[in-house]
């Protein structure tokens, strides 16, 4: 498979981690850490599909693969196209560390229609995270995808090795403590917002594209202050050596949106309450993006947000 990019980039989502050619990016996401689906596309077609779900019972992997391929064959038969060519029991994953804790079944299938498609895939059961992961790398039949597919499948991990989880999407990468989980995500054109929750409260990681348009001629400091919903008590600047861009840190108090009552809000007992907040932000000029990390709430975890901010890679 000839990718237009020779560079490879990581994708991390709900404890899953894989590396793919740079021009493949997330095309579809659903589910959560327990059960979910992730698809990466390039400009032409879907390139990687990953599904994960908790282990239920002890159904042999080869039977699950057989069921999937049967379904695919049935779909193909309904389209009245030539039958699917299937190969099973392939050893696509060579990494010893992966093989130690996982039972793996590799496979390959290809269609013979006009726009023929092929895929190399693997299904495995992990004894550490107790999840079944199904992954396949797709390509057109005329492409040689074996080397790319095996490389992608060999980089795929279903759980983190250390105490942190890597989150990587659309060119942004950072790490959160393994005890934190994703509560909410918004993947919009020009805006990515990820909200995490953990034992020490919540944090938000936000990226805005088209920074020049957002700033609209204002210096970053002005924009950062104007977009802080609250009173700023303390402020400091971030060292460029540590964050690769000059940035700002604000600490203050803001109205907790959860305590705002629409009805009878004027009553003394129903007045909105204030909570502390902490916010880091910087302008990544090479990537034309604005980054903001926020920790609402009073819980004493000043290090949590800083640690996430330190790991954030904003441009390649």
């Amino acid at each position, binding site marked *: 498979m000839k990718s237009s990019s020779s560079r490879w980039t990581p994708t991390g989502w709900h404890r899953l981690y894989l590396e793919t050619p740079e021009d493949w990016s997330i095309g579809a996401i659903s589910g959560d850490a327990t059960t979910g689906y992730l698809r990466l596309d390039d400009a032409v077609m879907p390139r990687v599909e990953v599904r994960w779900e908790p282990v239920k019972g002890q159904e042999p992997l080869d039977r699950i693969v057989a069921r999937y391929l049967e379904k695919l064959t049935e779909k193909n038969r309904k389209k009245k196209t030539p039958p699917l060519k299937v190969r099973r029991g392939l050893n696509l994953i060579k990494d010893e560390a992966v093989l130690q804790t996982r039972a793996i079944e590799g496979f390959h299938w290809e269609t013979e229609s006009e726009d023929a498609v092929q895929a190399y895939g693997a299904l495995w059961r992990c004894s550490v995270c107790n999840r079944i992961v199904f992954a396949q790398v797709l390509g057109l039949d005329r492409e040689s995808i074996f080397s790319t597919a095996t490389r992608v499948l060999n980089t795929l991990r279903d759980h983190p090795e250390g105490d942190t989880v890597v989150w990587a999407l659309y060119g942004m990468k950072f790490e959160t403590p393994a005890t934190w989980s994703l509560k909410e995500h918004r993947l919009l054109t020009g805006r990515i917002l990820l909200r995490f929750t953990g034992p020490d409260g919540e944090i938000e990681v936000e990226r805005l594209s088209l920074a020049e348009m957002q700033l609209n001629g204002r210096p970053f400091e002005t924009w950062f202050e104007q977009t802080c919903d609250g009173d700023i008590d303390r402020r400091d600047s971030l060292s460029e050596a540590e964050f690769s861009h000059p940035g700002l840190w604000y600490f203050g108090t803001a109205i907790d949106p959860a305590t705002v009552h629409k009805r009878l809000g004027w009553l003394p007992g129903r007045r909105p309450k204030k909570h502390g907040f902490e916010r880091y932000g910087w302008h990544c000029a*090479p990537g034309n993006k604005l980054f903001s990390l926020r920790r609402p709430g009073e819980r004493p975890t000043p290090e949590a947000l800083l640690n996430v901010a330190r790991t954030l890679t904003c441009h390649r």
Partner: protein
Amino acid sequence: MRLFRKKSPPPLDRRDLLRARPLRNSRLSWEKMDDGEVMISIPRRNTWWVGLMARIFYVPSRRTIVLDKIGSSVWTRCDGEHTVESLISLMREEYKLERKEAEVSTLTYLKQLMEKGLIGFAVPGNRANTKP
């Protein structure tokens, strides 16, 4: 009923859509202003009911639309030379967007322009009259 219903053209597949060339409506006049933004002048429709309404109410003979900076850069490239794919690449390079971001925003914008009748698409091969 089938006799009178116009058969709808088959939708464009993704590859054809990316190879299509957006083309400005030649009936429209437009100009680039000093700040780089584009002002498009759209003439009033010449239908009997618009004529009737114009006799009763004031209906201007033209209306103008001003596109923002990014919109203007897309508009000026809707010249029949650039393909949708090349527009996406240019957006990506110019504004340092991720491929998906550039693709979604460009396609949405081109769709809006097409729905307003400001542009059309020259599609490759013999796929004329197809729906993007």
